[in-house]
């Protein structure tokens, strides 16, 4: 026994040296959230690059030359799907001239497949309905349960692309899921006292978060992104907050606070900046700290209301 241990260690060192020398799988994601999960599952066998940074509005991303470069070298492209990236990604994929990451090929993974998607329209979607996502609300990763679904899908796809890493991906996925299970219990415990709390959100980005933590969304400040709300709608929002005693307005960090601050001032609700993505502030380094930060911000605002 005394002799076998150093030998085993030597083998382990050799094995790890070998894998480090191998080229890593290049994973490009549209969101930092997906990059965070992919990194957790892929471990040191992958390197990730996120196109949209967490502090940007994921609907409108200014393409940079580096995006095309990253895509042209990518082995796997992971997108949020549901047309979230439709405004910028399709031309970039074409320009990258990288067949691997074209939709339909194994190097293209739509992370929304299998996730619990809310607000899938049941009727025909027309332009008259305004800024409706025809395949459902694309902000599904704000429910940690969907993070688990996404992690499993990524593990399966990585295994398909890199069979040699199958065991590593299984192990990493198990670790991610175990941590997620533990964190979910912690988050649920923190949010439990506020189950049923009514909230108003700036845009319709939070149905999954609300469902996961049992909040009730009763209205939106700006129903159509980029178009200031009409006086009637603004008044309805203020009156709604007052009559329903809504304590907080949830605002994504990339919108100007002028309008929500005004409504908060008139109605007595508090504005809470909630980050929809990893990287929204430097403190949100991974998928877990995303929920840590958002839940703490929510709790701090609710404590202030009492």
């Amino acid at each position: 026994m005394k002799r076998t241990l150093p030998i085993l260690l030597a083998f382990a060192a050799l094995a790890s040296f070998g894998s480090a020398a191998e080229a890593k799988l290049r994973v490009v994601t549209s969101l930092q959230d997906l990059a965070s999960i992919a990194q957790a599952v892929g471990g040191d066998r992958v390197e990730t690059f996120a196109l949209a940074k967490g502090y940007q509005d994921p609907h409108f991303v200014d393409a940079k030359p580096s995006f095309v470069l990253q895509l042209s070298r990518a082995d796997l492209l992971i997108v949020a799907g549901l047309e979230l990236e439709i405004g910028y990604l399709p031309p970039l994929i074409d320009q990258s001239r990288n067949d691997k990451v074209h939709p339909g090929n194994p190097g293209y993974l739509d992370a929304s497949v299998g996730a619990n998607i809310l607000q899938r329209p049941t009727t025909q979607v027309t332009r008259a309905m305004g800024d409706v996502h025809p395949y459902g609300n694309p902000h599904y990763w704000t429910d940690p349960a969907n993070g688990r679904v996404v992690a499993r899908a990524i593990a399966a796809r990585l295994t398909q692309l890199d069979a040699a890493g199958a065991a590593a991906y299984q192990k990493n996925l198990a670790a991610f899921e175990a941590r997620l299970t533990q964190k979910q219990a912690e988050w649920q415990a923190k949010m439990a006292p506020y189950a049923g709390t009514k909230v108003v959100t700036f845009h319709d980005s939070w149905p999954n978060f609300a469902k996961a933590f049992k909040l009730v969304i009763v209205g939106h400040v700006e129903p159509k992104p980029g178009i200031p709300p009409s006086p009637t709608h603004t008044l309805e929002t203020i009156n709604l907050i007052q009559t329903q005693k809504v304590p907080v307005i949830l605002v994504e960090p990339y919108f100007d606070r002028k309008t929500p601050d005004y409504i908060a001032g008139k109605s007595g609700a508090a504005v809470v900046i909630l980050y929809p993505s990893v990287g929204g502030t430097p403190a949100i380094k991974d998928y877990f700290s995303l929920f840590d930060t958002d839940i703490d911000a929510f709790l701090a605002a609710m404590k202030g209301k009492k």
Partner: protein
Amino acid sequence: MSIFQLLLPAFVASLILTGIHAYLGVHVVERGVIFVDLSLAQIAALGSTVAYLLGHDLHSTAAYLYSLGFTFLGAAIFALSRVHRKTRIPQEAVIGIVYAVSAAVAILVMSKATQETEHLKEMLVGNILSVTWPELAKTAVLYALVGVFHYIFRKRFLLISMDEQEAERQGLNIRFWDFLFYVSFGFVVTSSVAIAGVLLVFCFLIVPSVTAMLFASRLGTRLAIGWTMGALVSAAGVGLSFVMDLPTGAAIVGTFGLALLLLAGVRKAFFKPIAA
């Protein structure tokens, strides 16, 4: 809260904005520097962006001072680039260049920032519905000061705007007075854009002044027409936005356009052409 309480500040804001902009609009139209407000607003926004990068809150006093400082820089550029018709480069070209470059630099600065600078894009949008009474009071005082300043030196400012050659002949330091003009203009535009957004400010500046020019050539009459029109059309626009459930700022701009069209038709039908 009633719809009246919600709309009243927006309406009063349009009155205050009309008051100063219809006057400044006369200068701007006479000088042919129509887009100077967009340009100054953009350079002010660049100032806020830089302040934000240096760690100041976007709505803080420091950020305001930065945007004001950048506006002064813009004023200096406009005053110095005045070329007395000696070269064929129009002032409007310089204004366009300042606009494009400061907008581009703001984008570059933002792209290198590490967090939540996205909403800077919305700084030039403004929502006139979300204006508050204290904000209005501050703005009114500021505009009154600028108004007094312009009243005291009205002869010089008007002479330079209306008849540059005569001003030169009288030996006025045109660059100096231009600088003062653009600085005072920058003061006004920086605050009004924050309240109402670029579109609405542009409309308050140009439309009443142009409308008045259709009917009168004397300054006093033009100001009276501009102010009356501004007040009535703002009221109509605010009302329309309520009745038809439209975003207020854009509704006011649309109403101004419609009113100008109608009045131009009226003038064509019932008035003899006035001597320019």
